[in-house]
């Protein structure tokens, strides 16, 4: 019974970290599918989102926005405003990077893009470090007491994370299935040349892909900050391996796969802590990825 209780507890933790991983993985999978390159700066885009939210949050202090927290949550309107504005800003930054950098390599093939993205990752991370220092920064410092439901401890903030991630995933689903741009995006991801022939403005699709991917990544970064209570410039780098594992597990190019992959990676890494040293969580994600590559490299949800 005790083991079962621990298992349930770790499952809840797994769902929480899984939703953060999934928010990063969806964006990575979308750009991977459409632009056909592994963007190694995606983790640092998440960190950028987290730090832009911090800057915006500090700005809101002078604007007279009511600062009281929402019900049991440890934050209020300023954080929510910072979160949403940071998603928008990060999207603009990602589109800007595409315009000045990646677009010029589009004809050079995926590997040159990959190298460029590794360079971009280091540039982004060190811009963040230059501005905000490598030390942890905090959105807020209050320590929240966990609530108990049927013996499982969970903080109200964590319930917010779960609901936010589920909401974002649902909105993305509506976007991909109901809107013209969403459908064009899926078509481009399936086959860029074919999409071009059918008259889809693929440059516009690429723009939207960067925007949506970066916005989701930014929200993932902010939620990671809310969950961990602090953010550092290394935040994205530490998440990168989980995100790639999730994308490969789900199948490159499939946002639904990324959601599923993120959840599985989150669950398995958390549950693994019952058996092995917590420090090896990234190693667990890595091993799952390698097993996947060995037996089903196309991912759970088959893509190209």
């Amino acid at each position, binding site marked *: 019974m005790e083991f079962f209780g621990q298992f349930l507890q770790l499952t809840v933790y797994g769902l929480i970290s899984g939703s953060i991983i999934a928010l990063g993985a969806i964006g990575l999978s979308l750009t991977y599918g459409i632009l056909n390159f592994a963007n*190694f700066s995606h983790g640092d885009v998440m960190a950028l989102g987290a730090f832009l939210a911090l800057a915006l949050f500090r700005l809101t202090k002078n604007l007279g926005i009511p600062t009281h927290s929402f019900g049991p949550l440890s934050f209020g309107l300023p954080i929510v405003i910072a979160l949403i504005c940071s998603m928008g800003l990060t999207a603009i930054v990602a589109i800007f990077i595409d315009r000045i*950098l990646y677009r010029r390599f589009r004809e050079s093939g*995926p590997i040159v893009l*990959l190298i*460029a993205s590794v360079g971009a990752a280091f540039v982004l991370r*060190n811009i963040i470090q230059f501005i905000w220092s490598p030390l942890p920064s905090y959105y807020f410092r209050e320590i929240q007491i966990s609530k108990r439901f049927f013996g499982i401890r969970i903080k109200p903030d964590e319930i917010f994370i779960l609901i936010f991630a589920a909401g974002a995933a649902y909105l993305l689903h509506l976007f991909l299935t109901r809107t013209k741009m969403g459908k064009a995006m899926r078509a481009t991801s399936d086959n860029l040349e074919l999409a071009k022939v059918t008259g889809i403005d693929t440059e516009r699709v690429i723009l939207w892909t960067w925007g949506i991917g970066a916005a989701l990544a930014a929200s993932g970064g902010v939620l990671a900050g809310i969950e961990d209570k602090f953010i550092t410039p290394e935040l994205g*780098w530490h998440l990168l391996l989980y995100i790639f594992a999730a994308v490969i597990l789900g199948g490159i190019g499939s946002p639904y796969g990324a959601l599923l992959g993120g959840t599985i990676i989150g669950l398995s890494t958390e549950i693994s802590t019952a058996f092995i040293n917590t420090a*090896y969580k990234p190693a667990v994600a890595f091993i799952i990825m390698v097993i996947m*590559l060995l037996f089903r490299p196309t991912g759970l949800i088959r893509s190209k």
Partner: protein
Amino acid sequence: METLVGYLNYFIFFAIQGGIFAILSLGLNIQWGYTGLFNIGIAGFYAVGAYTSALLSGPPPLALDWRVVGGYQLPFVVGLIGAMGVSGILAFLIGIPTLKLKEDYLAIATIGIAEVIRLILKNEAWLTNSVWGLKNLPSPLQGLIESKISLFLVSHPDFPRWLNALISKGYNWFYLFIVFLLIGVLYLVSERIIRSPWGRVLRAIREDEAVAAVSGKDVFWFKMQSLVLGAMMMGLAGGLYAHFAKFIDAMTFEPMFGTFIIWVMLIAGGSGNSRGAILGAFVIWAVWTGTDFITGHIQMAGYREGALRILLIGLLLEVILLIRPQGILGEEKVVSKMYEEKRGPHGENT
């Protein structure tokens, strides 16, 4: 005169570290430059080489150490061979699941293996002494050479101070000689293989895997050999670093110095060109050292200085990719020795 000697001694130090980077860059050149294998876990192979060599040739654990194994005090050469061996085996294992797939999977897998190695270095204290690292690593023949030097200096008390300062650091000259000797050997090996039929298969794979496979080449196996050979060079560089720095810990092999700067070096020098790999290593190492002088003149917090320097190197990479993707030297046209001999006096091998 004495400041000049100070600079010279610093230059020797600079050249040894640059030479170790050159070996890493030559290893990456085999993998990426010749074969198109995208390894961004160089730090992992580098670290494994350093730790293997340190555990084989280093001193046994001290009473206060967490580490309980290693320290067999084997000869330097055995340590280096061990470093190459273990790095090679690691590359073999990572090659199995990834070399049959698209190139970017290898990139992801190597970044993963580098991270896992970093975690092991940090957490398996019984093996690696965790964050306390491995200390007092021996440099080859150091005791012998330094005692000879001090004897020599004692018997020549009439030497001016600058000459004394120069000679007393004589051991670093010897280490520099070892590093450059190995660079020379690896350079010749690289040049030899790229002109061999084996090297031509590697380049064929890089250009078009399918064509190489259709010509009856076992693409997977060739890629594996290239990956392992490159990783062995990286392991060797790790061993050389360990015995030069005399101290290693998990922080030594962070992604910036273990992996990223090596990529910038190879791309700057010209991938696919072993001379370019060596040149790029020294040029970028000089640029990196130079940025220290630049940021040193601007008043700012220490962490800002570090971040600004890495940022500049990152921007430099993007600029090279945009305006000169082939690097300083670019790839050298290499044709078969047989062809050149047939062609007559202009071929360099006749």
